[in-house]
C-alpha cells in the first residue's frame, strides 16, 4: 500500500518538508537519487568523485529548498546544482594543475560504478562501451547527452548550460555522431 506522500508531486513534497514533514523529503530523495547518481557517475567517470558530488549536491539542494520555485522541473533543477558543483570542482582542479577542462579525461572506470559483483549481460557490456565512449567526448557534449538521457528537455539543458537551444541541439548531434563512430569502431 503506497503512502499518500508517494502520490504527491515534487512541489507538494517540498512544501510538506518545509512545513516539518521529514518523511516527505525521504520520498523526494528516493524518487530522484538513482537518476542523479547515474548522471553524475557518467559525467564524472569516477565513482569516488561521483559520490562526493552526489552528496554535496543534495546538501546544497537542502539549503536552497526554501527558495525553490515550483515549476514542475525539480529534476532539472537538481541536475543543474549537481552539474554546477561538478564543474566548480573541475575548475578548481584545473587551476591547481593547469589542465584544459575539455581535454581532461576522467580515469577509466566501469560504467556501473556501484560495482555489482556480476556483470555478464550484453546490455551491461554495451553500457560499459557507451560509457567509455562518452568519456572521450568533450564535457559539454557529454553533459547534453546525459541530461537528455534523463529526459531533461533541450530547453532546460540550454538553461543549465547557459546557451541557446540550437547550440544544445548541435552538441547532441555531435555527441551522437561521435558515439556511433566510436561504437562502430569497437564492433569491427
Amino acid at each position, binding site marked *: 500500500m503506497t503512502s499518500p506522500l508517494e502520490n504527491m508531486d515534487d512541489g507538494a513534497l517540498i512544501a510538506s518538508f518545509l512545513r516539518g514533514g521529514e518523511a516527505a523529503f525521504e520520498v523526494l530523495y528516493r524518487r530522484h537519487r538513482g537518476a542523479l547518481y547515474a548522471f553524475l557517475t557518467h559525467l564524472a567517470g569516477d565513482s569516488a568523485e561521483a559520490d562526493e558530488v552526489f552528496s554535496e549536491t543534495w546538501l546544497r539542494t537542502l539549503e536552497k529548498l526554501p527558495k525553490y520555485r515550483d515549476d514542475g522541473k525539480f529534476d532539472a533543477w537538481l541536475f543543474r546544482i549537481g552539474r554546477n558543483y561538478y564543474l566548480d570542482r573541475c575548475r578548481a582542479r584545473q587551476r591547481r594543475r593547469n589542465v584544459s577542462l575539455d581535454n581532461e579525461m576522467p580515469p577509466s572506470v566501469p560504467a556501473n560504478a*556501484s560495482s555489482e559483483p556480476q556483470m555478464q549481460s550484453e546490455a551491461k557490456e554495451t553500457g560499459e562501451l557507451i560509457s567509455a565512449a562518452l568519456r572521450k567526448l568533450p564535457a559539454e557534449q557529454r553533459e547534453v547527452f546525459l541530461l537528455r538521457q534523463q529526459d531533461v528537455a533541450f530547453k532546460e539543458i540550454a538553461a543549465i548550460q547557459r546557451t541557446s537551444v540550437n547550440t544544445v541541439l548541435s552538441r547532441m548531434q555531435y555527441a551522437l555522431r561521435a558515439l556511433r563512430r566510436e561504437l562502430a569502431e569497437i564492433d569491427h
Partner: protein
Amino acid sequence: MKRYETLPKELPVPDFLNEKILRAAADFSARRRQKALHRRIVFGGAAAAAAMLIFSFFAFPQRREIKPQAVMRQDVSGWSAIDQESFVLCAELNSCNLWDEEFSI
C-alpha cells in the same frame, strides 16, 4: 532498442550516502523548527512588552509634566541651587500639579 539506451538511467546509491543525506535532512528540519520557535519567542515577547506598555499608559496615573512655568510660580530665586533642584525633584516625585491654584507650599 537504440544502443545508447542501454546506458543505465538510474544507478543504486551506496547506503552510506543515503544515510548521510537523510541525516542531513533531519538536521536541516530540526534547525528550521528551532528558528521558527525562536522567532515565535522573540515576536511574542515583543508583542507582550508592547501590550504591557500600552496597558500601563492607561492603567497607571500619569505623572503630570512639570511645566517650567509651574515650577517658577514658586519663587525660588532666593534659594540655594541645591534647594531649587530638590524642590523640582520633589515636585516630580510627588507628581504635584504646581500650576494648581490650591497647591501651596
